[in-house]
């Protein structure tokens, strides 16, 4: 095995030069996003450092309860992030739908992936559970956020088409067909595109991380293939669930637009 080249805290600090350069450029050009750049860089650093500590602890003391707790926190954070992005634009029904689809979609895919594809042992092994859950939940969160945006936008742009379809005797489901299809496409496209570019245009983060920390590229590649398929499944299923339940949130029990 290769000796792993540990990155010291000072070396990490050197990477902050990137931030300084970007800050300098944005302030000279008067682009005016310095605050956001600084906050996001610092927040990212703090979040990852804290996560690092938590992971060190969890890996050293593996327990089913701890694994479950982290998964629950992840889900909550992902759902909260989506809610937050659409502040004030989500009906209660749509919120419930988003939460439910995230939970059911990601958990079903995660459990299948860990227990049937990878077959981890012990079943709660945090070293697998947490990073893979992170990727699935994270990507599904992005997918569902894109989906919700496309659904809300589609609804506000095409509302009169939907209404005309209802007037002409369409069921709400039929009236929403084109919006629902567009939404699915918008939500799944980034995942599809990243699969298309995989290995050629970019090396994915997980594989890079594994290779850097000493895993053989062959193993890393196998994992990457499996996880990409898992992510696509999770994004697609989560978004489909959201759409199947979510389109109804624009109608009442009497099939009228609300």
């Amino acid at each position: 095995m290769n000796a792993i080249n540990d990155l010291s805290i000072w070396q990490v600090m050197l990477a902050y030069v990137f931030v300084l350069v970007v800050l300098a450029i944005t302030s000279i050009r008067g682009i005016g996003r310095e605050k956001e750049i600084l906050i996001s860089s610092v927040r990212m650093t703090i979040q990852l450092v804290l996560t690092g500590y938590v992971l060190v602890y969890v890996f050293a003391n593996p327990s089913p309860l701890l694994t479950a707790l982290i998964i629950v926190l992840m889900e909550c954070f992902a759902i909260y992030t989506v809610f937050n992005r659409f502040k004030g634009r989500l009906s209660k029904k749509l919120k419930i739908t988003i939460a439910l689809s995230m939970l059911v979609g990601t958990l079903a895919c995660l459990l299948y992936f860990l227990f049937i594809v990878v077959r981890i042992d012990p079943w709660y092994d945090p070293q697998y559970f947490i990073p893979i859950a992170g990727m699935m939940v994270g990507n599904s969160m992005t997918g569902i956020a894109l989906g919700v945006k496309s659904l809300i936008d589609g609804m506000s742009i095409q509302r009169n088409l939907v209404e005309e379809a209802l007037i002409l005797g369409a069921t709400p489901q039929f009236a929403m067909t084109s919006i629902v299809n567009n939404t699915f496409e918008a939500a799944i496209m980034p995942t599809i595109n990243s699969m298309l570019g995989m290995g050629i245009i970019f090396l994915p983060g997980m594989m890079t991380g594994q290779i850097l920390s000493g895993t053989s590229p062959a193993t890393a590649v196998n994992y990457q293939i499996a996880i990409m398929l898992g992510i696509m499944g999770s994004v697609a299923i989560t978004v489909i669930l959201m759409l199947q339940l979510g389109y109804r949130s624009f109608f009442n029990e009497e099939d009228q637009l609300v």
Partner: protein
Amino acid sequence: MFELIDVKYQEVVDIPHLYITKGQTVLLGASGSGKTTVLKLLNKMISPTQGRILFCGNDLKQLPSVDHRRNVMMLSQNPIMFEGNIRDNLTIAFKFQERVIPGDEELYKILGKVQLEKGLDTPVNLLSGGEKQRLALGRIFLLDPSVYLLDEPSSSLDQDTEDKIIKMVSEHIKKANKSAVMITHSKSVAEKYGDEIIEMAQGKILYRRLRDECNK
């Protein structure tokens, strides 16, 4: 046919009692008096915030909305066209209702009825406002519901075409033993074709009367 009992819709419509009989009813009233709102209530695109509406003795609340809309069909005031050509727009509702799509011959027949001399392959975005209005009317006539709710079907037509169209509508309704509730701003149309004339003002019924036969 329709009975409205103590119906209110928000602050917009307030009708203590109204009976709409089978046959041809014309709804008059100033702009903003609540005519469109009443039509939407009748085909369940909206529901009253208070009161009940009966259709042939059945409470609308109990009737499945989608079935009711297929039976009591509304022509919107500003009909929306779907992407595509005239054929697409005539047949799209058959897809919505999962009915067998009629052939071109039948489509041309209906275009003739609504005085639209265009090919079925004409893209709808090339049509004028009045042509779109007639196409939308044709779309509904092709579906042939038992009650027609027509929201100013001739508002963007010239006098001549309006007369022809309204006459066609009226003849069809009579011959096929259907009913229609038609909104119009034209008193002459009302007197000529309304068996029953209702005028609204500020959300209330101003009067309801039968046609004055002497005017005929």
